[in-house]
């Protein structure tokens, strides 16, 4: 298991995808619940509700992309994995950023989206303000994503 870094590489891909995915799933889940409540009263707001509901969904996407890039750049996807133990650890470490960043920012953004939906339900004119406020949370997922990304694309250049 410790001869090479394959285990940790795959672990890294899993952490990035799963943790960020959980964050998004929770966020989108709570936003979707609220928006369905609004839609049961007024189904004409579907478009706006959809936008607000989907906003916390990006974390999962970032996590997935980091996971995917790990699989590509380590060669796991092409069936010829070539990673040293150090590189494996590097992948696993890099994945923690978007994993935890995505997990918590996804949940937090979900909460913000719920409030945004409630606000839009009261007055549709508030939609753009709600939308912008909800995206304020996203920057932290983005920063985590970029850190993960910058490491992942450089790992293949690491020496053993």
């Amino acid at each position, binding site marked *: 298991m410790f001869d090479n870094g394959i285990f940790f590489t795959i672990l890294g891909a899993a952490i990035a995808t799963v943790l960020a995915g959980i964050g998004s799933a929770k966020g989108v889940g709570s936003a979707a619940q609220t928006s369905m409540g609004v839609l049961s009263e007024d189904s004409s707001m579907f478009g706006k509700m959809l*936008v607000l509901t*989907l*906003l916390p*969904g*990006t974390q999962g*996407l*970032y996590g997935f*992309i980091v996971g*995917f*890039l790990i699989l590509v750049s380590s060669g796991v*996807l092409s069936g010829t994995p070539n990673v040293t133990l150090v590189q494996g650890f590097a992948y696993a470490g890099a994945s923690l950023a978007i994993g935890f960043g995505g997990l918590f920012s996804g949940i937090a953004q979900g909460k913000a989206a719920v409030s945004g939906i409630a606000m839009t339900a009261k007055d549709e004119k508030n*939609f*753009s303000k709600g*939308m*912008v406020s909800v*995206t*304020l949370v*996203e*920057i932290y997922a*983005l*920063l985590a*994503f*970029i850190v993960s*990304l*910058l490491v992942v*694309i450089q790992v293949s250049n690491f020496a053993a």
Partner: protein
Amino acid sequence: MKTVRIIALRQDRKRLLEHLQDSALVQIKSSEKSRRGFTRVNVSPQMQVFERNVDLTQQALKILDNAKPEKAGMLASFKGRREIDPDEIGVIAANAKEVIEACSRIVELDKECSDNSAEQIRIKTQLAQLESWNRLDIPLNTGDTKSTAVFIGSLPEQYSEQRLKEALAAENPKLEFETEIIYSEPNLTNAVIFAPKSQKTMADEALRALGFARPMSPTHKIPKVKAQRLRDQSQRLLRENEQAQQEIASFADMRDKIKCTQDYFRFRSDKYRVINSLDHSKHVFIIEGYIPEEDCEKLETLCTRVATCVVEFGEAGDNAPVKLKNNKFAEPAQGILTMYAAPGATDIDPSPVLAFFFYFFFGMMFSDAGYGILMVIATGLMIKLFKPDKKMRNNLKLFQFCGVSTTIWGLIFGSIFGDAPAALYNMFTGSNVVMAHSISNMSDPTPALLPWPVIDPQKDALTLMIISIAFGLVHILVGMGCKFIVCIKQKDYPGAFFDTGLWMLMLIGFAVLAAGLITTPVLITVGAVIAVACAVGLVLTQGRGKKGIVGKAIGGLASLYSITSYISDLLSYSRLLALGLTTGVMAQVFNMLATMMGTNVLGIVFMIVIFLLGHVINIGLNALGAYVHTMRLQYVEMFSKFYEGGGKEFEPFSLNSKYIKIQEDK
């Protein structure tokens, strides 16, 4: 914007107002009270009639939609209002009475239906109650005979005949009685109890102790007969409802007429609302309002043509509404601007700047030539086929421009449906080509499809991040430039040069310094000198509002702290990289999945399905992301630098309709 005052003869009121409404030139100002010597005419009763008609038609349309849904395509919401000839209005007006009658009939029928449905429910509960009395062969309200008291009712417990007798005997051993159990279930027994009339009070007390209660709605019919009658009634109501529904559905052809009539009454009620707010004297009336400067002449000729009147123009103050006027390139972005806020009195109209950066950033985030071309074609087709209304058309135009930018960025990033061309080529020929060589790896020996070097967000992430932040700097500087112009316009020179200019210079200094880090060290010195000079300048000037030397010094130093907000603003632009990368990678993943199954028939079917599905998902997710985040960059990062908002939009007195649009005279 100008103010306008039109004084005209009362006899011309109708004609003049109609023409004003048609031409949509003036926004009419309404004040609470009339000025001295003038009175208001009260036309509220007429107005209410019109408004009621609008409501009625709305209700009727809703009922029609439920009874016989209109066949509408998925894209119907893009469709513009139906254009009608100006002469048609006369026809609509002539038919209005008939249409309103039809609407009343529809609403009446609907009310009948809902009354019937309520009655049905009542019958149902009654039937359910009667169910348990089914075996009783005398009416529920049978009274006492000459010698016998009759008690018909329920007890809140389950009894057999034997147990009921025991219970009654236990209550009052002296009581003589006869019972018959009609129905029993846990916690309920329906029974008939006979007792000698002389013992009626005794029997009553004994029964009350057991919790005896007479039925809620006693009838003088035998339960079975009553139940049958209720069932018949329910059948009849059902038939009636069916008939009513059929009659409602028969009005479905009138839907268009109803829509036109609704708009007709909307026009009229709008007009009467205006009349309500006008000042009248014995012979003349006054209209006051706002008008865009370029329309003044048009209004004057119009007014003098249709009425005997005096038209005066004046300068509008700060409270005047704003009419945005932009060229074809910037107009689509007005919707984005007004979604934030219309420009306030001191603002400049930032639409052109907004438009440019909106298209630019959207393209950079969506960044795929394939998707971009699809956007351009789809929006173009929609505009051509549906002839949407102005607002919708502007939205479509917005995405068309975004599509152009997306295409260009897609080519720069080397992404056409992700790496679809290369993936498909490799799949069918078994060769190994890439889409293009990235700028950092020009000497790659594998053949490339695109002849030009591209910025590959995956391989050149760092370069792209620097580029993103550089664009961010430009964006912020443009925002501050707008502030600079606003300050100059207001003759706030210290604000322009010290508060805005110095910060702009300082940011430029840092940019030069950063450029120096990559290129020559000379630039580092130049940048540092600029930045330090600006910092000194800021410390010297930013405390100018404070009292005393110490206060000024502290104010100046504290102002340097805002550098943190600029840094966080700049970092925010790294989303340009993140979202650009997301589109590309997602597309790549779907292409990889699509080409997985090989080149046999099954594989190709699989490929087509996955390819279509995957890219549709990708377009949906990432177009949304690009739209939302571009908007955020505009609203939060740029507008915060200069834009006050808080203005009101110019809303002229016009034919404000929902379904029809009157063609302009050609």
